[in-house]
């Protein structure tokens, strides 16, 4: 019998209606659409799979688990965050992660979550910032979510925001979006049942996305923040 209370908590955090700010980011999709690399549902499905397996699963998921186990220690939280900050991801993607981390903290502060207030105080004192996966792993347990629920909600919010970006960029339609989400669910189930990578194994291998967001010659205006 599933824990209905927890299920409802997870659904609330994972809902695109939740004001996390994630919808402002395409995670490199916009650049690949401009390049005519992602043009239809098949190439988009490849992109989505690459993002989930070689960025979210191989990196964010591990960070969530480490933050989840940090307890109430701000010192450890800062340590985890500095590790994320040191990853040689493209600045646009790093900035996206920081902005979403800060936005999530601010929303939970407004919702009255004590742990979020602690983070906000810490950030104000240290003049620093915090990454999205760190916030998710640190704050969601205080809502009662367990580690696997944190992973599932994080993955869901990551891939729904990318699918939403694809719809808004005109790459796929609304029904294709649901087909993508259904296909991803099977892949994601396997990922979520596999062992969580440890710190030394955390990696990001989305080469083409990284390069697309590292171009000095990016042309035209952008719809998304990254």
């Amino acid at each position, binding site marked *: 019998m599933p824990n209905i209370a927890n299920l409802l908590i997870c659904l609330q955090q994972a809902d695109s209606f939740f004001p996390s700010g994630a919808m402002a980011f395409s995670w490199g999709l916009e650049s690949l659409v401009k390049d005519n690399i992602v043009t239809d549902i098949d*190439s988009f499905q490849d992109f989505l799979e690459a993002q989930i397996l070689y960025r979210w699963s191989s990196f964010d998921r591990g960070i969530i688990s480490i933050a989840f186990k940090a*307890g109430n220690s701000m010192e450890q939280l800062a340590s985890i965050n500095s*590790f994320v900050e040191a990853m040689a991801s493209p600045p646009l993607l790093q900035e996206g992660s920081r902005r979403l981390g800060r936005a999530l903290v601010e929303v939970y502060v407004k919702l009255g979550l004590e742990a979020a207030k602690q983070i906000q105080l810490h950030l104000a004192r240290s003049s620093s910032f915090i990454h999205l996966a760190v916030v998710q792993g640190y704050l969601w347990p205080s809502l009662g979510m367990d580690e696997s629920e944190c992973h599932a909600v994080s993955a869901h919010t990551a891939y729904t925001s990318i699918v939403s970006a694809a719809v808004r960029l005109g790459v796929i339609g609304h029904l294709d979006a649901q087909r993508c989400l259904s296909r991803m669910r099977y892949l994601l189930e396997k990922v979520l049942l596999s062992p969580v990578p440890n710190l030394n194994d955390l990696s990001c291998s989305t080469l083409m996305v990284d*390069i697309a967001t590292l171009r*000095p*010659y990016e042309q035209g205006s952008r719809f998304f923040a990254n």
Partner: protein
Amino acid sequence: MVEVSVTNHDLLEQIYTIDSNKLQVDLNFERSHSGSTFLSRQYVSYPFHLGRTLNHLTPTGATAILQSCSGGLFEHERIGIKIHACSNTTAHIGNAAATIVHTMGNGYAFSSAHIEAESDAYLEYIPNLTILFPAARLVSEIEVVLHPGSIVVISDGYLSHDPDFSDSAFGFLDVKLTVYDEKRSLLVRDHFNIEGCIWNRKLSGLSGSFTAHGNIFVLAKDNDIKKLKYHLDNLITQIFNSCLRVDIGIGILPNRAGIVVRILSDGSALLRYVLSEVLKVLHQQIGNQIEVVLSS
């Protein structure tokens, strides 16, 4: 509460647990009284051979070419390299040819390099490309310690090679770079890994239809890299506009620890070309800086 102290110590343990008895190469560069760089210590064992030191970057810099007589990397092989550059030295370490990683059973080949540049040293570690044969499995780690004012340039390049055109892929590639400052604080971490079967799927967002990829890292804590970035931006834009079979980007590294240039290309020749063009600009732009180092 579970211990999750991650800043540096977990990672550092890996650096300093590299068993010095298992190193195949251990080099130390020092500055002579005349201002030139010389190799003050060299330990080189199978499969490597080190030729005499040459002048490549500047008349007073030292160039060391590592040659391998084993024909590449084989299953279960472990290669350990340690390079140390003392203050105010200028050195370049390269190798004579591409490294083939041969077809393997279930095992891996491991390569590790530990590089330390003391204050105001300039050190290049620019090996040739690594060619991954079908079912080759390689784990490569490079760890760098940067002291104030030092510059370390590292390049890598990997080609997926299928000599029989049988749609075979390499087995696994895991490439890690970790950079610390002189206090052993973590500055940069880059970790890429992929299975060959995934690479061969040509996924949008990962490798696409490209067969080779590489990076140049210009690691330069406390150095002004804006001018260098400006010139590299121009070069990269030119290359991208003139060649459809290359994708290339450039970015500032975390903690303002330098620049990375990332390249995807169709074949090794293009990758080599782009790497060499980037190095040319680098040498033009930091040439003055090298002279400053040597004359200080």
